[in-house]
């Protein structure tokens, strides 16, 4: 499958490309907002992760898979028909390796946030919250330890879904 029928920059219209440029940052911003408020308001790691992936999926659809690797990360993309390098532990484009790492980091973070509680002799997954008053600009801020768990879930969802997108999309 070395000769991809589609050009690197796929043949979508300029309207679609421009609106993607506008929309994707907004999607990502909303996702981050949902992630941060998730510990006591609607939102959370899962939905933020799904929203982030929607943003990436949009880039993939409009600009093509290779754009992310070549245009954004300045990598040379090895055609898939070549034998995979020894470092390559799974099928799919090279970027799926990074996605796999995001997935693992997320899992470790979520499980780790549960384990921390055990160090304080609280049950696994216990959560706490810290209120900080009088910060400049923000005033009242709460730091919930659930955020670490949420961040872990977020990374798991982003990593997992992007891996699937990249692997299936590349076939």
């Amino acid at each position, binding site marked *: 499958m070395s000769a991809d029928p589609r050009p690197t920059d796929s043949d979508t219209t300029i309207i679609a490309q421009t609106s993607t440029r506008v929309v994707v940052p907004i999607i990502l911003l909303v996702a981050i907002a949902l992630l941060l408020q998730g510990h006591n308001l609607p939102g959370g790691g899962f939905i933020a992760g799904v929203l982030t992936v929607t943003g990436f999926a949009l880039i993939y659809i409009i600009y093509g898979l290779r754009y992310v690797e070549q245009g954004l990360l300045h990598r040379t993309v090895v055609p898939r028909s070549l034998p995979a390098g020894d470092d390559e*532990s799974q099928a799919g484009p090279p970027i799926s390796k990074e996605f796999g790492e995001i997935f693992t980091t997320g*899992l470790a973070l979520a*499980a780790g946030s549960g384990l921390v509680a055990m160090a304080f002799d*609280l049950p696994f997954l216990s959560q706490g919250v810290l209120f900080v008053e009088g910060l400049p600009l923000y005033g009242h801020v709460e730091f919930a330890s659930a955020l670490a768990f949420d961040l872990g879930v977020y990374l798991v969802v982003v990593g997992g879904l992007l891996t699937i997108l990249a692997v299936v999309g590349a076939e």
Partner: protein
Amino acid sequence: MSEHVVVAPLVVALVTAILTLGVRRYPRTQRTISLLGIGAYAVAVITLASRVVPLGVLTGGGGTTETLTYQLSNWPAPFGISLVADALSVFMLVLAVLVVVPALVFSVLYIEEFGQRISYHALFHFMLAGVSGSFLTGDIFNLFVWFEVMLMPSYVLVVFYGRAKHTRAALQYTVLNLLGSAVMLVAIGGIYATMGTLNMADLARRLAHAGEYGINPAPVLGLGAILFAVFALKAGIVPFQFWVPAAYRAAPAPIAAVMAGVTKKVGIYAIIRLLFTVFGAATLESELGFGMAGTSFLGLFGPVLFLMAIGSIFLGGLGAVSRNDLDNVLAYSSIGQVGFIVLALALAATGEGTVRTVGLIAALIYSLNHAIAKSLLFLVSGTVYEAVGSIRFDALGGLSTKRPVIAGSFFLGGIALVGIPPLTGFFGKLLVFDTAGKAIVAGEPFAEVALAVALAGAILTIAYFSRAWNRAFWGTPSEPVTRSYQPTTMVVLVGAFALLVVVLGIGFDPVYRAADAAAHAATEWETYVEAVGPEVIE
């Protein structure tokens, strides 16, 4: 104060899974971590087991079993998720350890290096985490979650080799279990709507005092039957057995060993927990009609279990007699063997007092025996495949002269299933017959039929096992067998595992006492409720 020892097996399995995922680019480190992880898991389980069932109980020197509880994330029961380690949970966890440790070591030798690197170890440990969670949880919805944690890796492991027959089997397995999960969710929703709680201890208490809580138990019987059907699907009991042969054949040998040995027993465990602990004291307000006598939930489930047991024993036995390769025989055999476990459960459900306890002990010992013997046989089948390159009977023959250790291990596993003393299988079968005998004395309906079915099943077991033995291991060595080589480490491992079967049979007293404690833990729901201590709301 919190008893971290309860959650330890779960955390160890999860952490190992994540670590193996993290170091997957360093295969040797990954294998080391995986093996160390399984060792730590065994240590965690044994520590927990020794806290719950002290050594004195096992040796008959006195001491009492305990029920340890753990409130995840510090929410009190019934609001938070309770983990409960009683003698029954611990019995099942030890059973799991006895199977997964040899299976993982075998995998390291058996699965090709590239396959191990992708995700095999992580999936294996995630599956183990799901299994441990299912055994430990005290909350029905959480049970659903752990089922899913256990099933998702198993979907991937069934399709591990990724060729045509594997994808086909995995598709069937996945779709069926997805439907099962949806149905389980429906039952859970219904139970929550009628009972107002999902904590098992709270459910047991409310069902026992249905009048005081203003609950009508009749819908719970139906919803419980739906849950039961889902558990039966996981355990592969007739009429939910059809996914079993294809999935076991498609999965790599060590995974087939774990699926037959452990994940099936998760279904059995869930049935025991649901029927005997949660529904232990539940009764209907009036008789059901439709020719169903009595008002106790257990009594109503008894005949259903009985029919499913008969179906499983005959379908599994007759199926196994007519198959032409090792894995197929083993897969059908495991349907039949689970039938024996369910038969003991059926007698326990309809019986009272001693019959119930002995029936449960029989079911638990039979589960343990089947778990060890069947996973041994699957590992032997994997070794045969490695050595000869085929497990079809027409390519095998004469293995006993060429490869005596492999043949000896198969023979030991086989006679453990058949039930020859002094192996555990003998005691398992003996206890099933004993339960049937006691039930006849107690004047239970169908008890004579149960005895006859158990006898017929035992004869079928002898038939298919001796046929497999004759075709694969006796006679003149066939062409592929003569060309076979000796995978030494694998053979040593399988041989050691086979010795374990013998050791457990000879040192049977502690095993019996552990099962006895587990059976009491299952039926004494008051102790369970008291240990969890859910707050009374309303």
